[in-house]
């Protein structure tokens, strides 16, 4: 309340040379700087009321809201979103592992926009025409900020997801030669169509590279397959056959067996054996290997 007189003088000054939106913006920025503590406090309360950012401690909240606020005002002042982009990416990097959701990030930025808009209303309510001009300058900038933060956050999330996918992919489908002309493909984890495609590629090139005659695909570590992947698996087996290798599939879980029969994938041409051990024995038989245990060897 004690700010009123001073505000009035500022208002008339603003009115005199309210030609460019730029000047309005700088007035606006100094207003926001001046009432920083109060507005930030108000914003933090609104965030709490809306139950956003519950994953963060009050201290973290205070620190983050302060820096978001400062960045926000700075972008309003400079009109450059680059610094904000950088900050938003940084922030996202920090809070994504804490389980902060997209709607929360967008939510707090929108709240800040509203809090600041409200304070502008309060300040310029006596002069409707000026208020309009101020809002004309403020709104596009504010929306651009909201946009930037949301996009940066989503980008960062996608980057993290892509990184993880790459990591999974790299360790997902090893093609291991165990004996001359015998390959093993242990499959761990869920097979999606992308992984299945990759598996096929690696298997077929592996067959040519190692001149394999028999391949054992062990899917003990794979909890489930869907219809697409099951069909893809059958196609892989057929393609391997075209390259002169026969495929043995081992470790079909009861659930997968059930799925395959239910969705009616044609498995008549598939050579399946219960477990990896049985599969290896069958493969050795096909290749003409015999494995015998030496008498008197240490393990009993």
């Amino acid at each position, binding site marked *: 309340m004690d700010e009123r007189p001073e505000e009035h003088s500022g208002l008339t000054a603003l009115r005199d040379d309210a030609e460019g939106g730029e000047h309005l913006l700088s007035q606006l920025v100094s207003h926001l700087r001046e009432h920083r503590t109060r507005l930030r406090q108000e914003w933090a309360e609104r965030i709490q009321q809306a139950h956003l950012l519950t994953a963060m401690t009050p201290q973290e909240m205070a620190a983050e809201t302060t820096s978001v606020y400062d960045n926000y005002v700075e972008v309003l002042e400079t009109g450059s979103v680059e610094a904000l982009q950088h900050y938003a990416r940084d922030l996202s990097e920090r809070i994504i592992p804490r389980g902060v959701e997209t709607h929360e990030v967008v939510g707090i930025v929108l709240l800040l926009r509203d809090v600041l808009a409200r304070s502008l209303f309060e300040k310029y309510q006596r002069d409707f025409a000026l208020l309009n001009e101020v809002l004309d300058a403020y709104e596009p900038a504010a929306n651009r900020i909201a946009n930037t933060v949301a996009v940066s956050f989503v980008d960062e999330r996608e980057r993290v997801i892509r990184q993880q996918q790459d990591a999974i992919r790299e360790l997902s489908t090893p093609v291991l030669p165990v004996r001359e002309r015998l390959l093993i493909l242990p499959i761990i984890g869920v097979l999606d169509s992308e992984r299945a495609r990759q598996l*096929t*590629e690696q298997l077929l090139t592996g067959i*040519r590279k190692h001149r394999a*005659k028999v391949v054992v695909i062990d899917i003990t570590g794979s909890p489930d397959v869907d219809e697409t992947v099951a069909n893809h698996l059958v*196609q892989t087996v057929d393609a391997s*056959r*075209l*390259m*002169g*290798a026969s495929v043995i599939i081992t470790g079909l879980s009861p659930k997968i067996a059930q799925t395959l029969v239910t969705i009616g994938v044609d498995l008549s041409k598939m050579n399946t054996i219960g477990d990896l051990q049985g599969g290896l024995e069958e493969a050795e038989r096909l290749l003409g290997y015999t494995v015998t245990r030496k008498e008197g060897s240490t393990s009993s």
Partner: protein
Amino acid sequence: MNGGPALVSIMRQGSTLIASVHTALDDSQLVRFEHDLVDQIGEHRSRGVIIDVAALDVIDSFAALTLRRIAEMARLRGALTVVVGIQPEVAFTMVRLGMGTGDVPTALDLEEGLALLAAHAPRARSGTSTDTSNGYP
């Protein structure tokens, strides 16, 4: 039949015919290849046929059908056909488009194909494995 040099060389190795496809064949060339090959099976009294398609990076449905037809004709004339050298990408494309080689046996390369024929030969005609002549009596 058609003029021009053959795009497939058909070589005789003992009682086996080896047909090596050098380049992608169009439909009329495939028909000519089929004709030539089946002719020669009778001529040389071959017991085995190997078709090497390693040079092909595309096998379309007509080519796949021709391979199956050749195999069936060869069987009727007493020879076993093996298709060898199908490239990984080609193999998967063929399967995805639902055009496998049917019952025609396949092998990785020429060497494997010969081994496969050798494994079948004793059943087809006793003494083949020790018979080093060219297949004529």
